[in-house]
């Protein structure tokens, strides 16, 4: 198939970027979206042009690095997938595809389609952990009984891969779904209770400092999350935060 691509090109974080048109022929429907970009890059390199920079790593839907806004939706038109899992069969011959980086003040563009998501790391570092002493004789994890329902909910929250699609999809560039998943995965477990109040206060404070927007409860994040993280986590974080604030 023949595709008309409109791709964001930006030399670096200090240079103004622009949309550039490319035409790519010979794309096959069983190629992944990233393979399609690989082929375009090979053509650009053969012509002596600078290839398009884009993030990718595992190419199996786990790492969350392939952050592309495709035709106005994070990770493209299909649901519950990352870009590496998107295949060209989701497009038609002659389609125009608009490809942009995540747009958020807290995710500055490094080059072309690559953004700096270290703001997520800083939120995680602010409280997304439990403090335990480790030794050569760790206590058996099964020694602490955990309700099955709680363990499942915690695990579901922990499946967040920190890709940033929630921020990209949100009209306010809010990071509430990411932060709430990281708060919830500990809040639901007994091991997370000791530092629960400090955790939620510090992670929300860091989220605000990074310049993310506010949550309007549109639910766009939940729809676009490749791991199906639920809005229930945001409500849980709100409860945790209110409770921690009132208790001081």
């Amino acid at each position: 198939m023949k595709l008309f691509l409109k791709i964001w090109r930006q030399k670096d974080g200090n240079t103004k970027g622009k949309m550039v048109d490319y035409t790519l022929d010979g794309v096959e429907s069983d190629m992944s979206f990233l393979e399609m970009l690989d082929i375009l890059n090979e053509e650009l390199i053969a012509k002596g042009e600078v290839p398009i920079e884009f993030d990718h790593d595992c190419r199996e839907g786990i790492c969350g690095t392939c952050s592309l806004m495709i035709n106005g939706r994070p990770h493209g038109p299909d649901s519950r997938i990352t870009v590496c899992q998107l295949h060209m069969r989701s497009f038609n011959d002659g389609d125009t595809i608009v490809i942009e980086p995540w747009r958020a003040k807290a995710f500055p563009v490094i080059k072309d389609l690559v953004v700096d998501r270290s703001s997520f790391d800083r939120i995680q570092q602010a409280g997304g952990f439990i403090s335990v002493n480790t030794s050569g004789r760790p206590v058996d994890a099964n020694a602490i009984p955990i309700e099955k329902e709680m363990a499942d909910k915690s695990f579901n929250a922990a499946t967040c891969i920190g890709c940033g699609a929630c921020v990209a999809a949100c009209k306010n560039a809010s990071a509430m779904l990411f932060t709430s998943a990281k708060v919830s995965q500990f809040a639901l477990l007994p091991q997370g209770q000791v530092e629960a109040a400090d955790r939620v206060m510090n992670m929300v404070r860091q989220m605000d400092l990074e310049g993310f927007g506010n949550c309007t409860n549109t639910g766009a994040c939940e729809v676009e999350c490749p791991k199906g993280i639920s809005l229930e986590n945001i409500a849980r974080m709100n409860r945790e935060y209110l409770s921690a604030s009132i208790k001081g």
Partner: protein
Amino acid sequence: MSGLIKSSLARKVVMALSGLFLVIFLVLHVTINLASVISPEFFNEASHFMGYNPIVQFLMQPILIAGVIVHFVMGFVLEFQNRAARNVRYAKFNGGANAPWVSRNMIYSGLVVLAFLGLHFYDFWIHEMAYKYVEANPEDPTRYYAETVEKFAPMWRTVLYVVSFVLLSLHLWHGFASSFQTMGVNNKYTPAIKSFTKLFSVVVPLAFAFIAIYHHLNPITH
């Protein structure tokens, strides 16, 4: 508590609580307004009570006005922050693919309702304040029904009111249930809250619109 005042979550809580407070006020308002259709005598009595009872006038009314101001000022603050959070816009953004229109355009439905409140204050509140405190007219418990019906004589005012009620409906459609999510309520009752929100956001504005149209079509003939 200081963290609560500064944080994005706290601003959302202020938005949710002031919104829920205004929802309760709407129930009171529409109930009294419906009396103007069913029983003009009762409407006059209720309006006179609301207009001259010191607790209503000097405690509840200022709280209500404060609630309105807090809600729209915080709405603007959040909107400005949200716009700043995406300093470079997308060339193509398909917001309709993952979120309903009403939830993405609360600022616009809210602005229409705010503009309507300006007209509504001009029509009734300023008139009432002038009548009581500037002109210092004597109490007249029988004037309210006629004054209300007379307001809806012009077609333009009736149309403006009805259009505003449609936008109020859209605002409530998202806002009412959303306030519960902001307050941390997302559990087995959430489907019921969402269903009640839809019912409420249709029935209450529809009742307001019905009252305006009813009085427009049934003027008092002297």
